[in-house]
């Protein structure tokens, strides 16, 4: 029983990738910061244990979890059916993915991407979604992380890029001379706290916690601070998980 273990230890190890702003990053004082960090901090507080952040990277989030090197993962995990075969999820946020580009580039809506070269993070949700939804003639150029993709946009290797709305806000503020603007909505995907399968107690606790935090607006508060908009309703997602618990 992982939950009991955590309580007994008085500490929860949460895996967070600190290289994916605005979810996880370093602040000006080089302290962990970002939406995931705040949520993890709150989670630990509510559980009444100390928080230990385990720094992970995109590719080793799952191995860390599966080999007991972290108790849970709060690291902008998009929930997909394939992934759900390997780990369990408790929804806590959503990822609103858009395509943005400089103003002078003509592209409106997903159809407007035809023939355009768009940068995405390889294997991330925007990659899979755009592969499905964008017109045939769209060129998707895949990079390893957001920072590289941004660099590709700035250096003109791609015409536009797809990323979470929060990143767009950041960039627009930081590089005003690029005249970036949103061009198309891609998808809104629920994000989940990842945990090992067959841990019903922990899963139940996390679900209760998420529902409560969702209801009292604390999840929304964090979301608005980083993503520049309100957190959409997650009730239906919670119900799906609740159903799987029975």
């Amino acid at each position, binding site marked *: 029983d992982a939950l009991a273990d955590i309580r007994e230890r008085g500490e929860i190890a949460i895996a967070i990738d*600190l*290289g*994916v*702003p605005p979810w996880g*990053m*370093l*602040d*000006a*004082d*080089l302290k962990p910061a970002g939406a995931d960090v705040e949520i993890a901090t709150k989670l630990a507080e509510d559980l009444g244990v100390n928080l230990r952040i*385990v*720094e*992970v*990277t995109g*590719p*080793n989030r799952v*191995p*860390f979890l*599966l*080999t*007991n*090197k972290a108790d849970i993962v709060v690291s902008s995990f998009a929930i997909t059916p394939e992934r759900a075969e390997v780990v369990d999820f408790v929804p806590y946020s959503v990822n609103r993915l858009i395509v943005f580009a400089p103003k002078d580039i003509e592209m409106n809506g997903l159809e407007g991407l035809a023939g355009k070269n768009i940068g995405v993070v390889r294997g991330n949700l925007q990659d899979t979604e755009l592969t499905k939804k964008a017109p045939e003639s769209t060129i998707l150029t895949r990079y390893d*992380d*957001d*920072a*590289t993709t*941004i*660099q590709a946009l700035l250096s003109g290797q791609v015409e536009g890029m797809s990323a979470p709305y929060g990143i767009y806000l*950041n*960039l627009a*503020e*930081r590089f005003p001379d690029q005249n970036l603007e949103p061009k198309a909505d891609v998808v809104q995907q629920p994000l989940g706290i990842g945990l090992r399968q067959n841990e019903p107690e922990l899963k139940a606790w996390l679900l209760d916690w998420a529902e409560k935090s969702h209801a009292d607006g604390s999840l929304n508060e964090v979301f608005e601070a980083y993503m520049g908009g309100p957190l959409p309703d997650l009730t239906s997602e919670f119900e799906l998980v609740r159903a799987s618990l029975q």
Partner: protein
Amino acid sequence: MNTFSTGHFFYLIEAARWTIVLSLLAFAGGGILGLVLALCRVSENRVVRFLATIYVQVIQGTPLLVVLFLSYYGLSIIGYNIDALLAAGFSLTLYTAAFLGEIWRGCILSVPKTQWEAANCIGLNRAQQYYYVVLPQAVRIAIPPTVGFMVQIVKNTSLASIIGFVELTRAGQVVNNSTFQPFLTFVFVALIYFAMCYPLSLASRYFERRLKVGN
């Protein structure tokens, strides 16, 4: 989002300590095992030679990333939880030895056959032939490729980020992702790597020059 500051610079420097620790582990372990391997590869015993060849083929053919991954998580999965540092040291040793062993084998073979014969004829045993006659001559030709590989090791320790080490390259990525100033960030990363690797190159030149005496 914040901008690149001296704080970030020191964060990089601090991460570089891991790079150094991991490199030293690789040099020490890989150097010793690599020498054994090189000797096995030129051994007169067929079985020894064959086993060493298999080892070199397999380890050289597998990306270090995969070796690291399997020795850390793979062992965990089958029930052995090992320390990350141990896993890194183990993987880097295996990997470094395979390459150094192969480089050194070439150098050993480049010593003319007549030198072996002369050493043999004055009664030196196999170990003595290596120690007194062959290795000193092989070392000279071995220095540049060895150092060349060692500086690659220093940089390849960055792959240890897969098992959780925040070493120089990973720290650079984190800083870059927080500041979105890739050129500045990576120029500093490159400079720190240069500061760690260049002394190796200098040492190599020094030893090359010294060993030239009497050759």
